[in-house]
């Protein structure tokens, strides 16, 4: 049982939990957090695939991919949050 196996499986479990959250959550904010969990899980699988038994150095390509993925995900999160805020303002305006 290597680090790659342990963290890879953990990543898959996190992805699965996120999936559950996206499908099940009724709340906008919670769904977004669940999507972020999915992203974290997928990233973990990618990085686990780059792990090599020491002393070999890990494969740098998945690391670069995951950094890209993190930046992409924070952008998407910010957009979704802006939509949530705007929607909340409009909805409370019309309710009032």
């Amino acid at each position, binding site marked *: 049982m290597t680090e790659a196996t342990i963290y890879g499986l953990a990543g898959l479990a996190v*992805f699965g939990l996120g*999936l559950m959250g*996206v499908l099940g959550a009724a709340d*906008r904010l919670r*769904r*977004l957090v669940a*999507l972020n969990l*999915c*992203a974290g*899980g*997928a990233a973990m*699988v*990618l990085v686990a*695939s780059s792990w090599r038994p020491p002393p070999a150095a890990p*494969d740098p*390509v*998945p690391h670069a*991919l995951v950094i*890209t*993925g993190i930046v*992409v995900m924070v*952008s*998407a999160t910010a*957009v*979704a949050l802006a*939509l*949530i805020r*705007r*929607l909340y303002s*409009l*909805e409370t*305006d*019309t309710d009032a």
Partner: protein
Amino acid sequence: MPEFAPDPMTLAILLPLFGAIAAFLAPRAAPLIGLGAVGAMAAAIAAVGHAVAQAGTVTVPLGGWGAPLGIELRADGLALAMLGLTALIALAVGLGALSAFAGEAPADGQPMPRQRAFFWPLCLLLLTGMNGVYLSADLFNLYVMLEVISLAAVGLAVLGGTVAALRAGLAYMYASLLGALMVLLGVGFVYLQTGRLDFAGLAGAQGSPALSAAFALMLVGLALKAALFPLHFWLPEAHANATAPASALLSALVVKAGLYILLRLAEAGPFPGEAILTLLGVLGTGAVLWGGVQALRAERLKLLVAWSTVAQIGLIFVALARAGTEGLSDSWRAAALLILAHAVAKAGMFLAAGRIKDVIGHDRISELDRSAVRPALAQLAFALAAISLIGLPPSLGFIGKWSLMEGAMGAGNWHWIAVTMAGTLLSVAYFSRALTGFLRFDRVRAPLDEHRGWALADAPPVVLAGLAVGLGLAAGPILAVLDLGRPFGVTP
């Protein structure tokens, strides 16, 4: 390697990007910059077309590294057809957008000058992403491109700023993100198995559990993005509540990105078995029926058009499934034709629906026949687009459906023919709901205010819808273009 530099493929991707930057920096000049950028992009695509016509398949190893270390751009007939389609739609929608943002904004929506200022950067970023998807030969790059498309598309979907548009846009965003993340995890599995990210690495790989998992993940993720029944839930509201030019782009182009990547994956990867293809066909059947029924029940014109997108996407999946044992090597052409036909007709139809809504002031189908104002040209465009979507000869839609049924007959798969027929009948039924509204004059109480003069805004929908019908006559050349570079390894 092309002699002149930079090569046209990179330009086709980066020119709209520069346009987006310029349009964002100078919002007042955005329409001018936007149209200029689209024109320049079209020129670059023409150059790509020249190269593809000469050499079949053209590749550019970005950075000079080449696969598997670097990312390669690759163009063949299928990619070229999609690029040309994108340029055509972008040009028409862009011209339509010149006047589309002139009317009154809804009470809870964004003011029109703001919508216009933000339409162009987002539209051009969308084009960057679309061209990037068509030309990419790298799995991770496709994921990044999908995210570029997602964000730009969500921005376009919520451009109107109404509560309904924002709600639909958020649901769209979530569906789109989930789809992209599934693709990302699929890419991870591919890397785990093959240690590469390019399509060529996928082609050489042996089937294995990890690759099956990767394929399943990407299939579900892309089906979510392409709105395949029952993963279509986000589409109707998002497309129906966007402003007309945005709807046209979303419906004609954005959903095609998922479809196109599915086609490319099927081309490169371990071939999806017959069982999977049949499953896709069954889901497509569900989409054709469910989308048709919902379109019959829709109360608003734009919602009807949006539900018809669900049905038409389903038909494309039926086209992929139709050849049975021969698999995709034959049926992809029918799917590609239907993709082109749907894009041209649906862009025209959404622009026409937007014009009708602008002129009449609402788009409730039951009251279309009571309007004293008659946007005759927009109604004509709508009818022409409907002809192509229904699949009457000589339209492009007819050629697509014909190709679908011909293949199904050849393989003895009569059930797919029955599905196509049922879909056609349903589309006749739901489009005629709108068309009868256009034709009836007797319900009008007020004196007819027939002619308000032609507006420039009527031209793009009419041209697009006319093309959707007329391009059927050019089916031969279109098929010849599709076969350039022999996608799917078939000889024409």
